[in-house]
């Protein structure tokens, strides 16, 4: 097996791998996107294959309307707590960073537990922007349970949580010409291997991968091998952190607090049962019920092709704004804002 093969040998194997012409693999994790470009793995690919990025960065798939809601709440004088990477994302007319510069109380936190602490210590209405995939959602659910247990009356969640498998289902429902998926490591640590069984119905292999160069290259080799031989399996190539059955306790906490709802993805539109919202027992923690949110809207940004980038239809340089009007120092679209966005990774690492 590939386990004890050195990195140079793995790299060499990938470079000379006889991939079927037209092979197209999609990576579905922003952390993989960054690692691939940072390690220069895209330069090791055999000419017969293409590697495209999918909707793997929660910040990038969050629609403008969510930022608009957060901006409206900030202007109403509530404390907004959020993971730091949401602050620069542009909404229709503003961003949380701009609102903070204008005097709104917006704080980047490392954990939803920090948001609870801010609510408890300040006594002010505190909203946490619940953004993330299955890796992040259980912790947010645990924080919601704590808020209820401790009867914290001034804490609420503005939810935009998203689930990976429904988005992949929506992607492969239309013919994307994909040959297989490099699957996210830490999302899989929660949802487990069986969550991807639907790929097999479409005769697509998937490999759950870790984040080091060896991990990613060996996972790509496994995918190419399976594709060449018409083998369709989900392989767990990250057993260090991922049990095949995932983390049942995390899933139990998640489904105690949240239920699946239809949700909007940038570039993919509305996808059935692809988001999470608070169950009725937790409705008191829903910012949308607690506040009347009057958000400003605007027509979509002209020229921004983040949506097509997120579906793996185009590489970032095919966007007319790429590295011209939209750059890491003045990003227009979320794929350039987030360090994990494809556009940002292309500019930063080439």
């Amino acid at each position, binding site marked *: 097996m590939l386990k004890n093969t050195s990195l140079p040998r793995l790299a060499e194997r990938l470079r000379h791998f006889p991939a079927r012409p037209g092979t197209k693999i999609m990576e579905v*994790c*922003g*952390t993989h996107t960054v*690692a691939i470009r*940072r*390690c220069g793995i895209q330069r090791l690919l055999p000419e017969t294959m293409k590697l495209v990025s999918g909707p793997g*960065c*929660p*910040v990038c798939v969050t629609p403008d309307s969510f930022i608009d809601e957060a901006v409206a709440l900030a202007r109403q004088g509530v404390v907004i707590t959020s*993971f730091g*990477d949401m602050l620069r994302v542009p909404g229709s007319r503003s961003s949380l960073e701009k609102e903070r510069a204008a005097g709104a109380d917006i704080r980047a936190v*490392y*954990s*939803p*537990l*920090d948001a609870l602490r801010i609510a408890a210590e300040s006594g002010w209405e505190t909203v946490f922007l619940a953004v*993330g*995939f299955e*890796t*992040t959602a*259980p*912790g947010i659910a*645990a*924080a919601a349970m704590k808020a209820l247990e401790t009867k914290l009356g001034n804490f609420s969640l503005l939810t935009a949580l998203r689930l990976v498998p429904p988005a992949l289902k929506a992607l492969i429902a239309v013919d994307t010409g994909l040959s297989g998926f490099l699957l*996210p*490591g*830490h*999302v899989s*640590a*929660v949802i487990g291997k069986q969550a991807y069984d639907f790929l097999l119905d479409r005769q697509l292999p998937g490999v759950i991968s*870790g*984040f*080091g*160069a060896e*991990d990613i290259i060996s996972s790509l080799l496994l995918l190419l091998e399976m594709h060449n031989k018409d083998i369709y399996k989900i392989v767990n190539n990250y057993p*260090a*952190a*991922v*049990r095949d059955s995932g*983390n*049942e*306790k*995390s899933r139990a*906490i998640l489904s105690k607090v949240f239920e699946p709802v239809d949700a909007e993805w940038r570039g993919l539109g509305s996808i059935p049962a692809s988001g999470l919202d608070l169950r009725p027992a937790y409705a008191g923690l829903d910012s949308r019920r607690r506040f009347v949110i009057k958000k400003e809207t605007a027509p979509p940004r002209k020229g921004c092709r983040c949506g097509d980038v997120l579906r793996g239809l185009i590489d970032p340089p095919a966007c007319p704004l790429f590295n011209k009007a939209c750059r890491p120092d003045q990003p227009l679209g979320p794929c350039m804002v*987030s360090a*994990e966005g494809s556009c940002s990774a292309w500019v930063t690492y080439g």
Partner: protein
Amino acid sequence: MCLAVPMKVVEIKGDMAVVESAGLRREVGIMLLASIRLNDWVLIHAGFAISKLTKKQARETLAIFAEGQFFA
């Protein structure tokens, strides 16, 4: 966004634990894992332990960070 870092459990206080890696200490939630003991290695994401690792696995993952193959 889904990045997670291996850290070692050095103290347990109910549903929270103090974890340590490379001299950095943090208090994290441990309610997402079925059982955690002192000196266990765990993957930490957004203030919660999300997965257990063996010491060997944790070392390998930390080496990936250290070699600059990846960044936290």
